[in-house]
């Protein structure tokens, strides 16, 4: 399809190789395994493939047709048109990792700016060039803590209010390591903001404490005591954050976090059914040399002009191999660019406006829902950002079904991950949701109740 070889080209090349046919180049492959008949669909031309993909996509209902209150780790924000226009430039998306700085200054400077923005946003000193997503960034935070204590501390304390998928991924990463305990997120410790019990789990064997801010339920919780307790025991503290929320909230760096990670999708990436997204990873100065992934640094060239390069590469797998801080190689380069452009075109005020709209509308929605018969705001005394939980008198599955009939994706059924939260529905509200949308939602729910 995309091979430019004319018959004549092939002949010239074969002649120069002194062989008769291309197949001769593959004689090293055991004959019985050569040229299998692959059971694949017939090849399509571009026009046919385009139509086929359109038709596949049309079997979905998207957030353009459905009014969506789904969040739980991925958020439907407005993406300024400049972001995608710039991302579609071939110079950005068809470039490789910037190992050759002389012909990669664009990518390098953009990553440097990304690092700067995330440092600013999180209040941290150092940020890497990305991890795969929030979940893997959380797992890598644990790996960092493990290696920081040279494997000597065995306890990894994780709040039950951390995204269940992050916790699942972290468990998968540590699966072979029987000696490592991931704890604190069982039903007994609980999801409530009763810190004391959770803090009580911290001891001298604790490598890392991981919390989320705002937490999985959207709640904004004060981790001061927890962080102090962790530090008192010499443990590291990692905070998973929602970057949009940080426009308005005290950054975790100021709260004393050692590691700040999170899902960068809200920073200009489409929902795209879950990926590609962006794991961001920031640490204190102290942990700089323990960080995994790529880092871009400023330097000068032979003429003394400013230049950017990948630096401290000795931490990475291609140099340190079995002793690297992580096996990560390809990361989310283009997504860091999307985030950088997104944050830049919104700028200081625009970014705060987005966050504030989310905050305000979510609070309006929570308030309205709370007034619908049969629904009650959970965690009513705890502040939240743009996601909140309501308890429903009816099974959530039924509620969601009813809403679906009105072209509403009603939110996330928490009973799936939290048995103790059966009949609890979680809703996210972004700047794209209008007051009218919220009123439509409550009207539909009212109607159901009176049905």
């Amino acid at each position, binding site marked *: 399809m995309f091979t430019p070889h004319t018959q004549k080209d092939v002949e010239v090349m074969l002649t120069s190789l002194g062989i008769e046919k291309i197949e001769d180049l593959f004689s090293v492959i055991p004959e019985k395994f050569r040229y299998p008949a692959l059971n694949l669909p017939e090849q399509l031309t*571009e026009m046919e493939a385009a139509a086929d993909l*359109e038709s596949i996509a049309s079997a979905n209902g998207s957030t353009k047709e459905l009014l969506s209150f789904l969040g739980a780790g991925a958020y439907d924000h407005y993406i300024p048109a400049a972001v995608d226009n710039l991302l579609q430039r071939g110079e950005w998306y068809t470039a490789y990792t910037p190992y050759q700085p002389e012909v990669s200054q664009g990518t390098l400077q953009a990553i*440097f700016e990304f690092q700067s923005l995330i440092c600013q946003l999180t209040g941290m000193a150092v940020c890497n060039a990305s991890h795969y997503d929030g979940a893997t960034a959380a797992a890598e935070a644990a790996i960092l803590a493990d290696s920081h204590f040279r494997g000597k501390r065995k306890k990894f304390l994780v709040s039950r209010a951390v995204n269940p998928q992050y916790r699942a991924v972290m468990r998968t990463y540590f699966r072979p390591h029987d000696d490592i305990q991931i704890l604190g997120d069982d039903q007994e410790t609980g999801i409530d903001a009763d810190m004391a019990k959770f803090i009580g789990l911290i001891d001298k064997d604790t490598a890392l404490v991981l919390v989320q801010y705002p937490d999985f339920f959207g709640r904004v919780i004060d981790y001061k005591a927890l962080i102090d307790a962790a530090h008192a025991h010499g443990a590291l503290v990692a905070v998973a954050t929602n970057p949009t929320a940080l426009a308005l909230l005290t950054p975790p760096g100021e709260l004393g976090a050692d590691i700040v990670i999170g899902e960068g999708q809200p920073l200009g990436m489409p929902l795209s059914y879950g990926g590609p997204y962006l794991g961001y990873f920031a640490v204190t100065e102290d942990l700089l040399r323990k960080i995994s992934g790529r880092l871009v640094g400023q330097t000068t060239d*032979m003429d003394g002009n400013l230049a950017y390069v990948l630096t401290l590469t000795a931490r990475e797998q291609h140099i340190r191999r079995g002793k690297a801080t*992580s096996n990560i190689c390809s990361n989310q380069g283009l997504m860091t660019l999307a985030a950088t452009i997104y944050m830049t075109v919104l700028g200081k005020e625009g970014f705060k406006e987005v966050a504030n709209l989310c905050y305000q509308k979510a609070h309006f929605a929570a308030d309205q829902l709370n007034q619908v018969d049969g629904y009650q705001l959970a965690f009513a005394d705890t502040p939240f950002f743009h996601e909140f939980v309501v308890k429903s008198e009816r099974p959530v599955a039924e509620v969601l079904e009813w809403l679906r009939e009105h072209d509403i994706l009603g939110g996330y059924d928490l009973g799936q991950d939290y048995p103790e939260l059966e009949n609890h529905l979680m809703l996210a509200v972004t700047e794209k949701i209008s007051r009218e949308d919220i009123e439509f939602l409550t009207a539909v729910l009212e109607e159901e109740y009176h049905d």
Partner: protein
Amino acid sequence: MTEPTIFEMSSPGRRGVKMPVSDVPEVALPKGFERQELNFPEISELEAVRHFTRLSQLNHAIDTGFYPLGSCTMKYNPKINEATSRISGFANTHPLQPEDTVQGNLYLMYELQKMLAEIGGFAGATLQPAAGAHGELVGALMIHAYHKDRGDHQRVRMLIPDSAHGTNPATSAMVGFEIVPLATDARGNVDLENLKSLVDDRLAGLMLTNPNTLGLFDENVEEVIKIVHDAGGLVYGDGANMNAILGVTQPGKIGFDILHYNLHKTFSTPHGGGGPGSGPVMVAERLLDFLPDPVVGIIEEGDDENPPLYGLVSPAKTIGRIKAFHGHFGIHVRAFTYISMLGAKGLRDAAEKAVLNANYMQEKLKGSYTLPYDRSCMHEFVLEGFWDDVPGIQALDIAKRLIDYGIHPPTNYFPLIVKEALMIEPTETENLETLDRFVEVMLKIAEEARTQPELLKNAPHHAPIKRADELKAAKELVLRCYPKY
């Protein structure tokens, strides 16, 4: 002209994209959590567009020129992939939507799993891994889980050829395996004697890249696999080099137990200046139950009237979830588009032309550069980037000099077993004129090395910057725009 950073371009009060005023009653922020300061840039939209347009022009990219970067498969990224992955029905679906509202996505993933398994000759696949290294992690975790499931707790040793990519040992280390280096023989194959001496009942497995990082297909691959299997180990295939053998042979049929692809290499999805990648992992029958949770399956069979109902299912002995949600779905759409357009015929054609291109260039260059393993190569080949009669010239100098001719340097200093390695992969999407020009330039550089070595030492001369001071970068660390964060 150096481009200032977005922070340097900022001016207080300047606005980019504005947001609407709120249409709901205002409530206060949570007390005690109010952020004091957000030091974000304040730039107009026009200046932002200019900044990122100008920056982009400082990059070399597939879309601007030849990119013979070994092991990276910098082939053409079809523009149609970018269009299909942006179709609203794909781009605007939330990963947690009820399955009945995303049957299009699930169908696509199901089919892609099937197609990828078929191409590799495997029984099943997961699309979750975010990149090649992430796929390796899944593979290594499955190897661990497999042995554990059988009670083989003593299997802790992972054999890794000395030619392997850094991610192989790094991954094995993450999973807790003991890394056992395996030698390469004089023909560039796994050293069979060495292999035999290393296998015993502590063997967990072997991570084999085939074609390997020398661009060579292991001549004894069947025997290598047999030795490992006989010793109770599993063979993991690093499929980074699958572009050489698409449609030509199926690793799964040869005996590999597990294999990852890099969709961003072999299946034409963009590299994006470092990512996102996507590293689906294929497995043989006996490992199906260990795949990450979930995979896409058929929940209800279809019939003449109705399509099947697709859904997410958990493999019986799954190693668990390896990534949030469903992997890099946007990349899956691109790879699906690509495979749809190539079909079996096109895949084979791609591999054949990739290998033809590499052999042609190898043949033309081997007189002027030392070819350490002088045999027919696959999709790439490795030269030595130095000459005994030209002291002082290194692979790096040759690489940088190529920039002056508008060509991206080959991968250098990898694999480690070749001195001053220059690893060259043209890919199948380059035409003969481009290959000939590369050869011509390489020969010219070989001559320059002798006549004007300083031309190489100080290269590049025609690039946005001169050679960068990497030592200084590491010594005087500057990792963000502002001292204060």
